[in-house]
C-alpha cells in the first residue's frame, strides 16, 4: 500500500471547513427566513452542508491517525486552525447576500465535488458522489432566487447587486492553488481548483446576466483562509458554535 501523502489531511480540512462554516452560517436563518417555506429550504441546505462536513472531517481524522474524530475536529480547533475560504465565514447579511453567496459557493462545490468523484481515495470519492447530488439542488435553488431578486423590484435588484459587489472579491480565493492542491491533484486524490475557474465564471456569468446583475471590477482578491488567516467574524462564529461542546466535553445526547 502506498503511504498517504501528508497533504491529504489539510486538503480534507479545507473541503470540510468550507461546508461546516457555511452550513453554520446558513443555520443562523433557522426561524428567521423570509417565509416558512424558505426557512425550511435554507435549513435543508444547511443540514446537507453540515452532513458533508461531518463525513469529510471523519475521513480527515482517520487520515491524520491521531484519534481525533469529526466532533473533536469541529469543536476543538480554534479559528487559526480552520482552513475554510474567507467567503463562507462572512456574516449572513440580508437574504440577498446569503443567496448570492449560496450561488457562488454551490456552483464551486458542484464543480469541485464532481471532479472529486474520481478521487483515488475511495472514501472521498463516495462523499463527493453524495455531495454532487446535493450541490446540484443547491445551485438550482440559489440560481432561481438570484434571478428572481436581481430581475425583481428596484430594491431587490439593488440589494442583490450590492451582495455581488461585496462578495466578488472573495471569489478568487476559491480557485487559488498552492502546493497542497497541486500535490493532491498530481496524486489523483484531489482536484486543482484553478481548473474549475473557467466553467464557474461561465455559469455564474450566465445566471447574473439572466438576473440583470453585473460583475464588478475588482483589482484585488481577498485571501488567507486556506492558511488559517481569517476575518474577525470566524472567531465569533466558532465561539457560538463550539460553546456547548467545550463547556461539557465528552457529553452525549
Amino acid at each position, binding site marked *: 500500500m502506498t503511504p498517504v501523502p501528508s497533504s491529504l489531511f489539510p486538503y480534507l480540512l479545507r473541503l470540510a471547513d468550507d461546508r461546516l462554516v457555511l452550513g453554520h452560517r446558513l443555520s443562523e436563518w433557522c426561524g428567521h427566513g423570509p*417565509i*416558512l*417555506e*424558505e426557512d*425550511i*429550504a435554507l435549513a*435543508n441546505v444547511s443540514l446537507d452542508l453540515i452532513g458533508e462536513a461531518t463525513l469529510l472531517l471523519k475521513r480527515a481524522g482517520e487520515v491524520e491517525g491521531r484519534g481525533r474524530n469529526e466532533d473533536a475536529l469541529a469543536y476543538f480547533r480554534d479559528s487559526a486552525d480552520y482552513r475554510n475560504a474567507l467567503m463562507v465565514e462572512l456574516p449572513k447579511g440580508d437574504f440577498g447576500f446569503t443567496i448570492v453567496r449560496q450561488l457562488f459557493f454551490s456552483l464551486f462545490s458542484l464543480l469541485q465535488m464532481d471532479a472529486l468523484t474520481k478521487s483515488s481515495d475511495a472514501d472521498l470519492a463516495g462523499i463527493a458522489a453524495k455531495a454532487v447530488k446535493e450541490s446540484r439542488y443547491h445551485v*438550482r*435553488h440559489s440560481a*432561481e*432566487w438570484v434571478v*428572481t431578486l436581481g*430581475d*425583481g*423590484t*428596484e430594491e431587490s435588484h439593488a440589494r442583490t447587486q450590492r451582495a455581488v459587489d461585496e462578495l466578488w472579491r472573495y471569489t478568487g480565493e476559491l480557485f487559488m492553488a498552492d502546493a497542497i492542491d497541486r500535490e493532491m491533484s498530481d496524486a489523483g486524490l484531489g482536484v486543482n481548483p484553478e481548473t474549475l475557474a473557467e466553467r464557474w465564471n461561465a455559469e455564474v456569468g450566465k445566471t447574473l446576466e439572466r438576473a440583470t446583475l453585473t460583475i464588478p471590477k475588482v483589482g484585488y482578491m481577498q485571501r488567507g483562509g486556506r492558511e488559517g488567516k481569517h476575518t474577525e467574524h470566524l472567531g465569533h462564529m466558532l465561539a457560538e458554535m463550539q460553546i456547548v461542546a467545550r463547556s461539557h466535553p465528552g457529553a452525549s445526547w
Partner: protein
Amino acid sequence: MTKPPDEASGPPADSQWPLWEVFLQPPKGEAHEHAGSVHAVSAEHALQNARDVYARRGEAVSIWVVPSAEITASTPEDMGPFFDPGNDKPYRHPQFYKVPRGVRVF
C-alpha cells in the same frame, strides 16, 4: 417582473405570496395525490418549496404544483344537488349483478 402596485404602502403582509397546491406521485406509480400547499413567487419556486416541504424523504417521484386560485371547487351549498346519489333511481347503482366467485374485493 413588474413592481407590485402597493410597494409604497409599507411592509408586506406575511402571506403576500401566492398559494400553490401540491400534488405528489408516490414511488409506486399511482396517481398524483394532493399533499398540501405552499407559498411561492413563481412556479419554479413553488416546485422547489414543495420538494423541501413534502418530498424530501423519497415520498415522491413526481410533483405537480397548481396555483390555488386556478382551482374551481364545489361549495358546501352544492352538497344536495351535486352529490345526492339519487337513491330513488336504483338503476344507477350496479347492484343487480351477481358478483362472480373468486372476486374478493368489490
